[in-house]
């Protein structure tokens, strides 16, 4: 079920009413409702894949108990941890990477002069959200193994934690220590939490329907027909893609966090205005936070993190970025994208500037940023946007051709919208969106943080009006990150 569908518009109030009015008195029944609602939400796409979620839930619930039981026997505990990791990565490997690895193997063999044809590739549909919920369940096993968490004895709570519908298909990838605790605790309806949830949902819809969906046809046109366009258009296309992917993914996250709030649950933040990052390290502290912290906690730190020799630290950085790239999709373009980020991150790390902006935002105590900050933000945006050529292109060769085309046809021509719309509207939209995000840059969980109720009311109206003004019936409304 898509958040931006009529189905969800009906589904959400029905579940909300059942949750707070009908099943309010028993935590167990409330959690059971969460499971049923989440399975309906997920099964709306394809009910057959519910088996995977259920099986993953059962296995990790059991494995969690076993790891805890064998805490004194490190070897046995590790064995059970590997069962969890092996199963979840096995699922991912089969559904997401099987064909990729087979094809890559065959290409390498062919490159060595042996001519073999692929007979092993399978026609497999990628189950929606598999990369998200497998990582979430693995984190549960890891946390028990590292003694940060005690396993739950309540299977219903655990199943609700794994399948909690607001974040099931595209995150944030939650830790059991945050979400499972809340699911195990009796929720109380709080007015402030619910209204803040509604505001986040509204803001998320704005980012998805207005920013992402209205830029999508432009980006699609430019990336499809890049060979016909001059450099100015290609730069425009990839820059707008930066806004599109941000609007799409952070819009989804806002709706997810907002929806969870309606049910009395606080999910972790996933985006903190990454477009205002002053270096690449800050960017990764602000973009897809739940994934980058996952890799940090469960891969980077266990490998030694930065507490090992410089060379090993650099290796660790390279590994997490390459794996992060591969997590996004079974394509060398994503690995290359990860490699670019590793190369951009390493100099910042070597200069010791990877944590300098961890606890503050641009123009922390002033209205306007300094010239240095503006230049830093522009440089970071440029570098991140450049890497997105690989993220968006269907293959490595087309990514390089795209870049080559920028160099070969380095000229300017005004770009015409593929449907004939006035481009000025979209430039203005992106500019206003950036300015507004700058104004609210200190609190990603409160996009309408203005004292005056009248101003807030006018903003809500303006946001809904802009959805109407930019609504396009013909746009594919799915979320970009669903493919991951």
């Amino acid at each position, binding site marked *: 079920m898509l958040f931006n*569908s*009529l*189905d969800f518009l009906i589904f959400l109030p029905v579940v909300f009413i059942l949750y*707070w009015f009908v099943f309010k008195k028993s935590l167990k029944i409330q959690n059971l409702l969460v499971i049923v609602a989440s399975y309906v939400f997920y099964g709306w796409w394809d009910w057959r894949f519910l088996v995977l979620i259920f099986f993953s839930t059962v296995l990790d619930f059991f494995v969690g108990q076993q790891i805890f039981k064998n805490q004194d026997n490190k070897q046995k505990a590790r064995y059970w941890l590997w069962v969890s990791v092996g199963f979840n990565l096995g699922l991912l490997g089969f559904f997401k990477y099987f064909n990729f690895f087979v094809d890559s193997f065959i290409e390498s063999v062919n490159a060595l002069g042996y001519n073999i044809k692929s007979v092993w590739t399978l026609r497999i549909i990628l189950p929606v959200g598999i990369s998200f919920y497998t990582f979430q369940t693995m984190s549960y096993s890891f946390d028990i193994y590292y003694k940060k968490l005690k396993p739950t004895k309540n299977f219903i709570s655990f199943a609700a934690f794994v399948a909690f519908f607001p974040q099931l298909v595209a995150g944030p990838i939650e830790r059991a220590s945050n979400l499972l605790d809340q699911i195990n605790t009796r929720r109380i*309806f709080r*007015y402030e939490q*619910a*209204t803040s949830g*509604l505001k986040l949902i509204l803001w998320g819809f704005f980012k998805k329907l207005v920013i992402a969906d209205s830029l999508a046809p432009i980006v699609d046109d430019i990336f499809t027909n890049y060979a016909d366009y001059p450099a100015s258009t290609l730069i425009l296309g990839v820059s707008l893609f930066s806004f599109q992917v941000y609007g799409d993914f952070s819009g989804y996250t806002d709706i997810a966090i907002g929806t969870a709030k309606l049910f009395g649950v606080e999910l972790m933040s996933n985006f903190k205005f990454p477009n205002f990052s002053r270096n690449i390290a800050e960017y990764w502290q602000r973009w897809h936070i739940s994934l980058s912290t996952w890799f940090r906690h469960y891969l980077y730190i266990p490998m030694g993190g930065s507490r090992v020799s410089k060379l090993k630290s650099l290796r660790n950085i390279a590994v997490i970025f390459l794996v992060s790239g591969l997590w996004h999709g079974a394509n060398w373009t994503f690995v290359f994208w990860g490699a670019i980020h590793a190369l951009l991150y390493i100099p910042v790390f070597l200069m010791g500037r990877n944590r300098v902006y961890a606890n503050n935002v641009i123009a922390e105590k002033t209205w306007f940023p300094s010239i240095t900050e503006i230049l830093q933000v522009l440089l970071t945006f440029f570098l991140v946007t450049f890497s997105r050529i690989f993220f968006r292109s269907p293959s490595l060769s087309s990514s390089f051709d795209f870049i080559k085309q920028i160099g070969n046809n380095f000229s300017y021509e005004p770009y015409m919208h593929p*449907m*004939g*719309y*006035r481009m000025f*509207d979209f430039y203005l939209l992106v500019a206003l969106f950036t300015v507004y995000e700058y104004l609210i840059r200190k609190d990603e969980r409160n996009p309408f943080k203005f004292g005056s109720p009248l101003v807030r*009311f006018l903003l*809500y*109206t303006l946001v*809904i*009006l802009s959805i*109407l*003004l*930019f*609504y396009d*019936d013909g746009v594919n409304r799915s979320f970009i990150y669903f493919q991951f």
Partner: protein
Amino acid sequence: MRKFILKSVLYILLILLLLEVIVRVFHLYTEDPPRFIDKYGVEKRIPDHDGYAVTGNRNQNFSKFHINKAGFNSFREFNPSADKFEMALIGDSFIEGFHQDFSNSIGKQIENKVKDVEVYEYGYAGYDFANQMHLVYAYHKDFQLIDKIVLYLNYENDLGRAEYEPNKGRIKMLSSTVFKIRDNIKLLAYGSKIGIVEPLKKLAQGGIAFNETDKAYKTNELKDSEAEKLKIDKQRIANFKNLIELYGFDKSKTSLLLDSRKTSDRFLDFCRNNGIKYIDFAPKFENSKKPTTLIYDHHWNAYGRSLIAKELADYLKEQKK
């Protein structure tokens, strides 16, 4: 909880109210002047209506219409007489021309190009060829005085029936309470126009919004086959023949306006073999370097309409020689 629900409902109502005001002030909605069937059984608009037609959700195309005393969108009244030269241009929404100011319609542009001619635009959204033939027949006294008649024929859509029956169902539907509500709440009219309430409509039509997956499996292998095309052409030509026999067709002063790219060769051959004249605007559209249709729908834009006007003006000049 009560506070949350009450406040949410209140906010939603206030926001909807403010949006209604904004949609009205900036005239984002489009108007559809009321329709009726007159005593001759002709479907038309209720006379003497002025308003604005809007296309696109950001007012991309905005034009004024004027329904004259005859019930059609036109800059002039229709008063045919023997001592003037008149041309009737009959057709569907393309001819009705809500996509351009009525003061600069195709008819007006023709009059600007050709001296001493009055152009009567009998355009009505939804007309097919049966409507057009019946109109000429029903108003035969007027049409006896009119010197030239041009019927706009959209071959793929307009020859679906062999006899005219007024569409009472449509008039009834448009005057139903649901449609009255839609027309009076401008926010709803606007939402309906941009397609945002489409899922709701589908839901109301029987839960289709929840299950569209079977659509992909409904294919018809016969659809594009030569045998199927021949069958369709035969039916359309038979309908055409029946309509001109039933309502009369003065070949000396009547021509069809058509796009040969969307018209079958068999039908064009039939016209040529039977002395039915047609004006083909396809070459002008094909050679155009600018877009000829609107962004939001397939109707002619201002430029496309100017090409049609030029085509018809050239034709009239030729005829008047």
